[in-house]
């Protein structure tokens, strides 16, 4: 029994001795010997169940075998350096446990190249060396023996670590992870805080080694937390922060916001958010507020979708607290370790959906002079026009927009934004980021309601130089963090181009008028945008002056001005010039320096045809007086007879004067093209439009126009039925006639004696015009011209004394062909000469008994030859009671024939025939010269054969 015990003891001693010798051999570099000793030691100790030493011997065997197999060492270079760097705590641990000293072979020593593979290594591998599989088995065995002892935790841990390193070389990650898993649960008591940190760091490092990055990150984070454990008197925030940074790759988190800009975030949001919160906290405790602001902004920017409403509030609250002391910037932050933290622009606060560069308002929009031909034709194509456009795909964002901005003018960019936050978002200092041109951005501050829908925001600025300007993005200040958001980095932003040309400065014109501004807005047609509208109410025929003040409110002198007008399509027929002006007086004040004012006068004249209103015509044209071509030999008379039934127009069917249905509107646009300054030199101008809205009310109009022949063939009477459609009493006067007073709604007839017109004298170029315009148009034109002449001759004016307004009345629209024919001087001009004196309306005097020479002369002004004609002279006496006495054979006798014959007359020819009369008694005689029915050409209008009736007064021979 004792012997057994003794033998047992002896074996234990031998075994332990062998193990010790093995250690020494290994240390001395005698690999082969150490292997032998370890083998023997294992044999001896296994038999005596000396488990701790058996474990140590197995471990020694493994170590020696590892040196054999992997002479390069198990730890990587970085691992070696780490161990040396942190050798101090390891040594401290050794000091605590002297017994473990021989086991704790510094792995750093193994990694150094001091132990070179010598020849013995080759032998050892062949003989006593364990196979790679066996190494792991033996490690397992050793660890299981160690685990029997509570105090051997450190040794067990070391063995695990070493086994993992070997497995890492063998690329057996799964087995390695089992060892590590075991190592995690090894209960080490009395560990100092520093040791705890070290333990977790090494665990993390080992996991890294076997490619378990997530596990590695997990333990690194635990190590970081350990650095600042509440039990530590001086928390190592700096170390914690550094370790936390190292965990980032494990959680696939990069601190560059650009990596998050593509679509929705995909990752372990909850875990990543936790990490970011820890980074924020650590950096704050480190005393680096700039870092915490950066991390917090990053958290808010990238994890916004994952934050709950309450979290959003909390994060922004703390961000605001931090930025009070240290505002967020757009600079790169350099971390102590060397890497840099890129800036975090808040592209989601607010979220921008659309960016649109706005054109200048229509009145300020620059336009290119047409004269510079070929400007638009790009140099890309040799063709003047080609349907094939040179497409540049992929350049959509940078494509140029086809309008221009003007230097010195406020230009606008519209953003559609929305606020994703559950509370009101205050965005300050929001402005544009541009390149290419000096741009003075005028920042705006806005406040977006909680979770707003799309919200338009207009950012403005003034380009200071010329060239191509590109809007790259915008800058904001939100929660005290400055952000420069570049459009290129924004996902899902719609933009229709961000480059626009800035052209040199142009003057700015402001218009003010003497007329009141109008609420009417003209229909926007053909792209005209009207800046100002004025309206005026006029009676038909009335004229008004529109005084326009042109003020140069820009900074450049106004050099040129062109005025054009355009009547908006109206069905109304308009007579005469609606708008007329004289630009010279205004231009005399040019160039207009900034701040100066020039005036410009436009005359507005309304001449519309109101007579076509049917209900009025029906009322008023019931007393038909047919126009007969018969010459009435009544004396000159002025027919101003009140109409029998001069009923005021009170028809209930809307015939009331002043009724809107009677009003007609005219709309016109006055265009002011102006330019000046450097922009003018570049060929740009601006266009300002003034809308003119004129309401025309009927004043007087002619319900009917008829003619009566006058006594002279050169004259005739024009009978005008004048109707006063206003609500006021008005007076009408024609040239040389007295005034006619018309009450409201009254109709009266006015007769005016007029000279006939020879319209042929009008400038007519039938040759050219006839070919170009169609005959109908030509006829219309001609009629208009005639009307104009008639108007100017008649010169009919009306006046409303109560309103002190005057105007013209025009007959143009009413002139029928028939009336015109009567008013026209016939092309065949008949003259009757009595005693060589032309006799027209005045009575020719002659003596009884003396033969009176009678000459009928025909001047042909028509373009064809006429005749021959036969004329018969029939004398008669007018009894002034409607009875004409033709039975004058006793009183008048002819010398020669009473019939005259005229030969055919060539165009512009003249012909005459002579005869003589002998009056036997005194008295007033009339001569009615008429054509023989057969000889008068039927095809010629009857008015051409209108001969004056000759009045001869035969006097006593003595008298």
């Amino acid at each position, binding site marked *: 029994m004792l012997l057994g015990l003794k033998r047992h003891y002896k074996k234990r001693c031998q075994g332990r001795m062998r193990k010790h010798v093995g250690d020494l051999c290994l240390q001395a570099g005698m690999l082969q010997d150490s292997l032998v000793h370890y083998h023997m030691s294992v044999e001896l100790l296994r038999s005596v169940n000396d488990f701790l030493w058996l474990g140590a011997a197995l471990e020694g065997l493994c170590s020696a075998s590892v040196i054999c197999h992997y002479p390069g060492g198990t730890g990587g270079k970085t691992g070696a350096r780490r161990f040396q760097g942190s050798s101090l705590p390891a040594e401290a641990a050794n000091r605590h446990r002297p017994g473990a000293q021989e086991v704790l072979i510094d792995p750093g020593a193994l990694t150094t190249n001091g132990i070179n593979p010598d020849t013995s290594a080759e032998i050892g591998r062949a003989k006593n060396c364990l196979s790679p599989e066996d190494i792991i088995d033996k490690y397992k065995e050793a660890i299981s023996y160690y685990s029997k002892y509570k105090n051997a935790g450190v040794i067990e841990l070391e063995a695990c670590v070493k086994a993992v390193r070997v497995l890492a070389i063998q690329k057996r*990650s*799964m087995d390695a*992870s089992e060892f590590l*898993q075991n190592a995690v*649960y090894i209960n080490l008591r009395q560990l100092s805080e520093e040791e705890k940190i070290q333990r977790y760091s090494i665990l993390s490092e080992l*996991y890294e080694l076997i*490619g*378990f*990055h*997530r*596990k590695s990150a*997990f333990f690194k984070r635990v190590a970081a937390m350990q650095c600042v454990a509440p039990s530590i008197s001086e928390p190592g925030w700096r170390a914690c922060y550094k370790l936390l940074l190292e965990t980032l790759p494990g*959680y*696939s988190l990069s601190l560059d916001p650009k990596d998050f800009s593509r*679509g*929705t975030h*995909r*990752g*372990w*949001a*909850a*875990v990543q958010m*936790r990490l970011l919160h820890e980074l924020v906290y650590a950096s704050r405790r480190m005393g680096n507020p700039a870092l915490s602001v950066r991390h917090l902004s990053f958290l808010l920017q990238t994890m916004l*979708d*994952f*934050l*709950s409403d309450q*979290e959003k509030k909390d994060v922004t609250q703390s961000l605001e607290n931090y930025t009070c002391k240290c505002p967020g910037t757009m600079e790169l932050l350099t971390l102590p370790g060397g890497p840099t933290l890129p800036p975090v622009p808040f592209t989601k606060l607010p*979220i921008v*959906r659309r960016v649109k560069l706005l054109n200048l308002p229509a009145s300020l929009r620059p336009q290119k002079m047409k004269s510079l031909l070929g400007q638009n034709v790009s140099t890309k194509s040799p063709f003047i026009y080609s349907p094939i456009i040179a497409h540049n795909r992929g350049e959509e964002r940078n494509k140029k927009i086809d309008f221009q901005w003007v230097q010195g003018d406020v230009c606008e960019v519209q953003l559609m934004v*929305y606020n*994703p936050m559950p509370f009101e978002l205050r965005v300050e200092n929001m402005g544009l980021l541009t390149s290419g041109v000096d741009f003075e951005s005028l920042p705006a501050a806005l406040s977006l309601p909680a*979770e707003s*829908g*799309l919200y338009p925001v207009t950012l403005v600025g003034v380009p200071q130089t010329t060239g191509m300007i590109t809007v790259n993005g915008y800058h904001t200040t939100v929660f005290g963090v400055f952000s420069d958001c570049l459009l290129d980095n924004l996902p899902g932003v719609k933009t229709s181009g961000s480059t626009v040309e800035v052209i040199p400065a142009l003057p700015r014109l402001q218009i003010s008028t003497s007329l009141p501004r109008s609420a009417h807005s003209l229909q926007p047609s053909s792209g005209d945008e009207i800046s100002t509208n004025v309206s005026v109410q006029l009676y038909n025929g009335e004229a008004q002056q529109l005084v326009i003040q042109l003020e140069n409110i820009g900074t450049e002198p106004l050099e040129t001005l062109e005025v054009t007008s355009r009547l908006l399509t109206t069905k109304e027929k308009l007579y005469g010039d609606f708008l007329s002006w004289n630009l010279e007086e205004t231009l005399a004040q040019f160039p207009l320096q900034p701040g100066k004012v020039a005036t410009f006068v436009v005359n507005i004249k309304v001449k519309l045809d109101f007579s076509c209103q049917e209900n009025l015509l029906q009322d008023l044209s019931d007393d038909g007086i047919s126009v007969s071509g018969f010459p009435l030999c009544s004396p000159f008379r002025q027919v101003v007879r009140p109409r029998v039934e001069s009923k005021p127009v009170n028809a209930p069917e809307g015939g009331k004067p002043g009724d809107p249905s009677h009003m007609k509107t005219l709309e016109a646009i006055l265009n002011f093209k102006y330019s000046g300054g450097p922009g003018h030199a570049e060929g740009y101008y601006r266009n300002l439009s003034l809308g003119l809205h004129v309401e025309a009310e009927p004043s007087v109009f002619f319900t009917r126009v008829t003619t009566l022949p006058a006594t002279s063939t050169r004259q005739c009477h024009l009978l005008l039925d004048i109707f006063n459609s206003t609500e006021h009493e008005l007076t009408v006067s024609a040239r040389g006639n007295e005034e006619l007073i018309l009450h409201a709604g009254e109709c009266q007839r006015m007769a005016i004696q007029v000279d006939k017109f020879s319209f042929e004298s009008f400038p007519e170029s039938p040759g050219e015009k006839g070919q170009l315009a169609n005959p109908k148009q030509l006829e219309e034109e001609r009629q208009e011209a005639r009307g104009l002449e008639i108007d100017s001759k008649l010169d009919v004016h009306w006046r409303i004394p109560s309103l002190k307004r005057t105007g013209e009345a025009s007959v143009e629209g009413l002139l029928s062909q028939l009336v015109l024919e009567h008013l026209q001087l016939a092309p065949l001009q008949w003259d009757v000469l009595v005693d060589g004196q032309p006799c027209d309306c005045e009575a020719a005097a002659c003596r009884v008994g003396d033969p009176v020479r009678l000459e009928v002369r025909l001047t042909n002004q028509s373009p064809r030859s006429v005749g021959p004609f036969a004329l018969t002279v029939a004398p008669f006496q007018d009894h002034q009671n409607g009875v004409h006495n033709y039975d004058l054979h006793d009183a008048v006798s002819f010398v020669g024939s009473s019939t005259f014959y005229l030969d055919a007359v060539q165009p512009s020819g003249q012909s005459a025939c002579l005869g003589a009369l002998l009056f036997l008694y005194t008295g007033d005689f009339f001569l009615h010269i008429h054509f023989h029915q057969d000889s008068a050409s039927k095809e010629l209008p009857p008015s051409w054969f209108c001969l004056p009736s000759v009045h001869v007064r035969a006097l006593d021979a003595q008298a």
Partner: protein
Amino acid sequence: MAVCVAVIAKENYPLYIRSAPTENELKFHYMVHTSLDVVDEKISAMGKALVDQRELYLGLLYPTEDYKVYGYVTNSKVKFVMVVDSSNTALRDNEIRSMFRKLHNSYTDVMCNPFYNPGDRIQSSGSDAAEPGFPVITTWIPTCEKTTLPSWFPAYAQAFDSMVTSMMIQVC
């Protein structure tokens, strides 16, 4: 019983994660996240096996003191991870296997839904059932319009969700 069920996309981000004790959710997030290391390792190890012979069930990923983590990977590399209370010894491997198969079938149903965008989070938008902090964001519905989602829209996710719930309750 399962205490946590997670569906992980091919690119290793969570499509769905839900845990039974909601008070310490983060712990399970960490647990599932770190288990992916093992999943990756196992997948790379069996990468050479023929596709039809491949076992989808990965088995126990790693045991911890309180929990066991099991894994399952589909042919399209979508991973299912289940955390099971280790005190529950009644659970056999076969039961775990059948639970994974059910989960796989439900996931297939989700994928069949034409309104589901592969790669998006699986979530029932019913406000109480939804994970906090997982807003409805799909590529074709802007965030600002999320209130206008039709009521039938999350139907696929609700079925999946209730299936997971049943798995969590089942063995309790």
